[in-house]
């Protein structure tokens, strides 16, 4: 350090105004762009709440438990759609979780050669990239005709229960659930795979060292260590399943009548929006906005819970 002003190896330079302007200006610009996220969220909520305002005033909370959807007499209730959303996404989850976690274990736990593992991983990730409308097209023309004999068998065997008491005739809740399974399987697999990969090698080595079998180690050591991230991923995919629109719309049958039967046509909130929004007018638009608000709140709760789970319980190794 020198105070010698003649030494110009170190000179204090006053930054020119342009440079300072660029510096602060860029910071303000990025700040503004980052706030777009907050504004968008607020905008989405306010737009939909504002649109739903009229229907909320007219139908109140009864909207949630009424199954009337009658554009002629302007009577609206979203029970069929809310029930369909919950049933389809929860049942899809029940099928997809074992499949997804099992696949993730299969491709992380050194059961098969590395090349095969990454090939399966790649294929599952590519499955996630297929647009939902293409899956819907495939479901209409290929999957639904192919599984109908199986559904008919189900009806013959279990037709005495309210869940299978209708004859399968094309689109319905069951094919919609299956296509949802296809859609959320890659998410569950990818998140479970990441979670399992993060379990430190030492835990596995210790388990094998004391004589555990591979599956003993998986069930007693590795899965418990990764469970929080896996549960978070499952919640995220539940949110995705509830909001999934196109494939479900194309195969669920869009019935406005309530039915417990999984073989009968059903409806979900997002399918109802996709089908009716374009042609709706008057209070029907408002009722649809109300349904959209319900869907948004449901997915919001599920997503926030998922994030809290991942954040709160993530083990740091």
């Amino acid at each position, binding site marked *: 350090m020198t105070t010698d002003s003649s030494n110009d190896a170190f000179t204090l330079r006053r930054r020119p105004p342009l440079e300072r302007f660029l510096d602060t200006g860029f910071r303000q610009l990025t700040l503004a762009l980052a706030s777009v996220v907050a504004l968008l969220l607020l905008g989405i909520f306010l737009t939909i709440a504002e649109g739903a305002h009229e229907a909320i005033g007219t139908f109140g909370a009864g909207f949630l438990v009424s199954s009337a959807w009658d554009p002629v007499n302007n009577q609206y209730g979203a029970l069929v759609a809310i029930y369909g959303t919950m049933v389809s996404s929860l049942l899809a989850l029940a099928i997809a979780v074992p499949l997804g976690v099992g696949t993730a274990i299969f491709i992380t736990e050194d059961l098969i050669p590395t090349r095969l593992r990454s090939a399966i991983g790649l294929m599952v990730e590519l499955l996630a990239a297929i647009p939902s409308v293409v899956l819907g097209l495939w479901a209409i023309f290929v999957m639904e005709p192919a599984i109908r004999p199986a559904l008919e068998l189900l009806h013959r065997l279990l037709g005495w229960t309210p869940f299978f008491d209708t004859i399968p005739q094309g689109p319905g809740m069951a094919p919609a659930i299956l296509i949802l399974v296809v859609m959320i399987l890659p998410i569950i697999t990818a998140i479970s795979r990441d979670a399992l990969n993060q379990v430190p090698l030492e835990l596995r080595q210790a388990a094998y060292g004391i004589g555990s079998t591979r599956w003993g180690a998986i069930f007693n050591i590795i899965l418990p260590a990764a469970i929080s991230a896996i549960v978070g991923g499952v919640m995220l995919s539940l949110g995705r399943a509830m*909001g999934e629109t196109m494939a479900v719309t194309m195969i669920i049958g869009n019935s406005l009548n309530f039915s417990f039967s999984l073989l009968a046509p059903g409806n979900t909130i997002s399918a109802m929006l996709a089908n009716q929004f374009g042609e709706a007018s008057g209070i029907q638009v408002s009722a649809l906005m109300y349904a959209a608000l319900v869907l948004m709140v449901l997915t919001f709760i599920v997503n926030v819970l998922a994030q809290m789970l991942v954040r709160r319980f993530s083990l740091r190794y």
Partner: protein
Amino acid sequence: MSISTIGAPHEDLFDRRPLSFDRRLKRNRINRVLTGVAGMFATIAIIPLVLVLFYVLVQGGSLISLSLFTELPPPPGLDGGGIGNAVVGTLVVTLVAALVAIPVGVGGGIYLSEYSMGGWFARFVRFGNDVLAGVPSIICGVFVYGAIVATRILFDRSYSALAGGLALAVLMLPTVIKTTDEGLKLVPQELRWGAYGVGASRFVTIVRITLPSAFTPIATGVVLAIARAAGETAPLIFTALFSPFWPESLLSPIATMSVLIFNFAIMPYEAQNALAWAASFVLVVMILIANLLARWFSSFAQR
């Protein structure tokens, strides 16, 4: 067993049977069964991909011809025609979305990673970004309908390609922000210190040093986001709508491949169904190429 057994052969202390793997043990049989079950699950998981790809390639691939890209879809009930307007429309709408979402997303990501010191605002934006990523795509469509289409806020037009592009941009934004934020976090702190050390300002450091070194992860994320947006249908059904004609302007309704698939799949005409398969083929090939491209990008980063 006592101290005195030291030195003596301790047959009583250890099991001296040879350490060998016995297939018939219960634990090993359970092991094999469970491995088989996991393998079965993995097979079931990839069956849909194989089947979907097979049908899209066979049903759609057989219809690929030049006229598919140069002709308009036929009126219901007639044969022939193509999906030229929908191919152009998908490119236009996706381009609008990318032009909006990339600057906003990269800028927001820069703020989160480079400027915010982990304060409440940054935490709130990150949280909000995760929430926005979870908003169903149909809700984005309803939002843009309510905010833009119904209010006719854009040049007094209702349904338009611009509105569709904005709906897709809302969908892309969280991915772009997230990948920028995480990509910039991976840049070694020493690079920034080095830049400050030679007298660079914050702005110059970010634009000349930090952002270029994070190019690969950001590009990967952006390509993936674009690929995802190109296949989205739900936000477009009542924003961009559909049009049987060639695109006229950004301010009029526009055909896209995804909406075409949706509209034509549920029509009772075979010609339309065939065009839906052909559009699926084009869309899936485009998206798979983009995905493989992104993978190729990210393989650079790992080197």
